[in-house]
């Protein structure tokens, strides 16, 4: 066939080409057409990607913030308490029953709730050894805890005395990073007190404190260190001393009133606590059980967060779907031409699904960057009074990956209806427009 160049010669010289004419060999037909359709509608594509990006950024920012907040609350809560506490059984009053065969007798009793005295856990050494042998248990620390009164000149303060074995207890409550003066040494007459108590009594490291208890114990102890637990009330009342000194003050010679237990995973504490009860028969309270209201709040927070995320994802899906519906209408003639030249319905379906997926993925990538920038700005601008970070927020790879997958899948699902509509277009009607 020879060239008919009449018009070609008459036309002005063509400008420089804007679009390359070759495609990578690995790119299938549907990808090539989908990408080119998206690139042709640059403005539309940019706007919907921005919309998706904002949605993804909101989800990532909120998720990271809530996860950071939750982790921080849990971490702070656990810094000052054991995962599980094994306590002696509470004293109860039992009525005396009549003999079973005296059916004529009328039984009546007024039960008075008994006072709960500080008492030791029965056979605590054997019990501690047994608990230490259970799976997932990291450390078991015996403590003798009770109330006391500290006297200093003309002032006095009620305090909580906690006698501990430092080598074990400080594995549960790390004291080194809370110490503001002195050391964590706890010899026979040493005591660690909080900043608030030190301030109230006007004492420093090395000063003496006279301690008395309701059971008649009294001793003069030397302040070896001053700590800050991050809580004003705790800093005013908590004190730590050696186990032996506390046993003497509280009238518990050789006894302990609580076994503190830490486990490998704090969120499995309740399971381990139940295992301890099952294995030993003693009462074991996990921090999860003790802070039940806190977990209710956490779960409520999780639910509301999930709901917000679902609605954001829904709005992202609606945005993608609406853009593709418009695209199908705008491109119906082109779809008709493609069908006329032998492109099958499944191919048309795929090329619109790919557009949806790409819009979702593109929005997710942009949204991840936006979310990371927002978190960076948050960490930079929202800080404690002393300039330290409010709480650590980490945008984990898992969270980023879930954002990418969520947005891409949302894009694919959102594209399904318009893609199906495009695939079902009657080529005759489509070409006619």
């Amino acid at each position, binding site marked *: 066939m020879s060239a008919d160049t009449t018009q070609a010669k008459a036309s002005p010289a063509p400008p420089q080409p804007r679009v390359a004419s070759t495609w990578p060999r690995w790119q299938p037909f549907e990808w090539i057409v989908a990408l080119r359709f998206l690139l042709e509608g640059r403005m539309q594509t940019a706007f919907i990607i921005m919309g998706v990006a904002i949605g993804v950024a909101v989800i990532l920012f909120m998720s990271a913030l809530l996860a950071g907040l939750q982790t921080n609350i849990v971490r702070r809560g656990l810094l000052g308490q054991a995962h599980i506490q094994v306590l002696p059984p509470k004293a109860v009053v039992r009525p005396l029953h009549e003999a079973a065969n005296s059916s004529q007798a009328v039984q009546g009793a007024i039960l008075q709730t008994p006072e709960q005295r500080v008492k030791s856990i029965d056979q605590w050494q054997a019990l501690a050894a047994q608990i230490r042998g259970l799976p997932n248990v990291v450390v078991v620390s015996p403590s003798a805890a009770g109330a006391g009164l500290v006297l200093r000149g003309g002032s006095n303060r009620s305090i909580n005395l906690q006698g501990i074995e430092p080598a074990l207890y400080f594995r549960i409550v790390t004291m080194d990073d809370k110490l503001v003066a002195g050391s964590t040494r706890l010899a026979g007459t040493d005591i660690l007190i909080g900043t608030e108590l030190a301030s109230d009594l006007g004492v420093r490291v090395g000063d003496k404190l006279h301690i008395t208890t309701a059971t008649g114990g009294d001793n003069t102890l030397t302040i070896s260190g001053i700590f800050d637990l991050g809580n004003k009330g705790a800093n005013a009342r908590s004190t730590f001393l050696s186990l032996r000194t506390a046993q003497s003050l509280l009238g518990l010679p050789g006894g302990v009133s609580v076994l503190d237990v830490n486990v490998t995973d704090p969120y499995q504490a309740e399971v381990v606590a139940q295992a301890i009860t099952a294995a030993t028969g003693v009462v074991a309270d996990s921090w999860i059980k003790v802070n039940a209201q806190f977990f209710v709040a956490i779960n409520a927070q999780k639910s509301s967060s999930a709901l917000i995320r679902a609605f954001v994802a829904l709005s992202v899906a609606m945005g993608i779907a609406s853009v593709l519906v418009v695209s199908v209408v705008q491109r119906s003639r082109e779809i008709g031409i493609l069908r006329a030249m032998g492109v*099958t319905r499944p191919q048309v379906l795929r090329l619109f699904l790919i557009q949806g997926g790409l819009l979702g993925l593109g929005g997710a990538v942009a949204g991840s960057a936006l979310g990371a920038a927002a978190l960076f700005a948050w960490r930079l601008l929202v800080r404690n009074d002393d300039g330290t970070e409010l709480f650590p927020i980490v945008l984990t790879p898992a969270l980023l990956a879930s954002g990418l997958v969520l947005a891409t899948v949302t894009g694919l699902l959102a594209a399904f209806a318009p893609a199906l509509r495009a695939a079902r277009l009657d080529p005759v009607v489509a070409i006619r427009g």
Partner: protein
Amino acid sequence: MADSGPLLVLTDVHKSYNPGQPNETEVLHGINLTLQRGEFCAVVGPSGSGKSTLLNLVGLLDRPSKGTLILAGQETTTLADTDLTRLRGRTIGFVFQYHHLLTAFTALENVMLPLLGDAGFPNAAMVERAAALIDSVGLTAWRDQPAGQLSGGQQQRVALARALAMNPVLLLADEPTGNLDTVSADAVFALLRKVNQEQRTSVLFVTHNPQIAARCDKTIEVVDGRVVTSG
């Protein structure tokens, strides 16, 4: 695909819209038509006579309500949609009154699209084939231009090159010159004639222009959904 015998045989073909409905309308009434290989046939008739419907049926874009349509020895009315689409892509080329190029692609890429859609992935042979077709319609210098930047005549020539990409046995041209000036219309008709003569591609050419119809081997006149003259 059978190489002997007529290329296209329509036997008692009817086409109705809204079949079984109160507003059922039959637009083709028992069309019988035979097109030999290498024939260049004009289809004429007044507007609304059923020419485009006939072309849609022959182009396998639509199905007859009744009758049989044999293309290249294959009965098409019973084929599944995907098979029909594949047969259409490999045996028929379309040139419409309006070029209907995909503006997101260059001239060369538009010509490559049918080859790409059929093969699934691009390859060097496709580029060569498309480039040769672009050369043959005299648009070598414009091959990398976005389709939307070409003139009407140039776009129609790209559409013709695209229609020839799969080396079809049948070209369906629905008033391809109706929207062009005389020079461009003559150029497009000349190209179709050359394809017909050099490759023995059969052509069904719908036109309202009696001069162009007179230059075809055969003329079919459609009036009120019936073929009234053929010869």
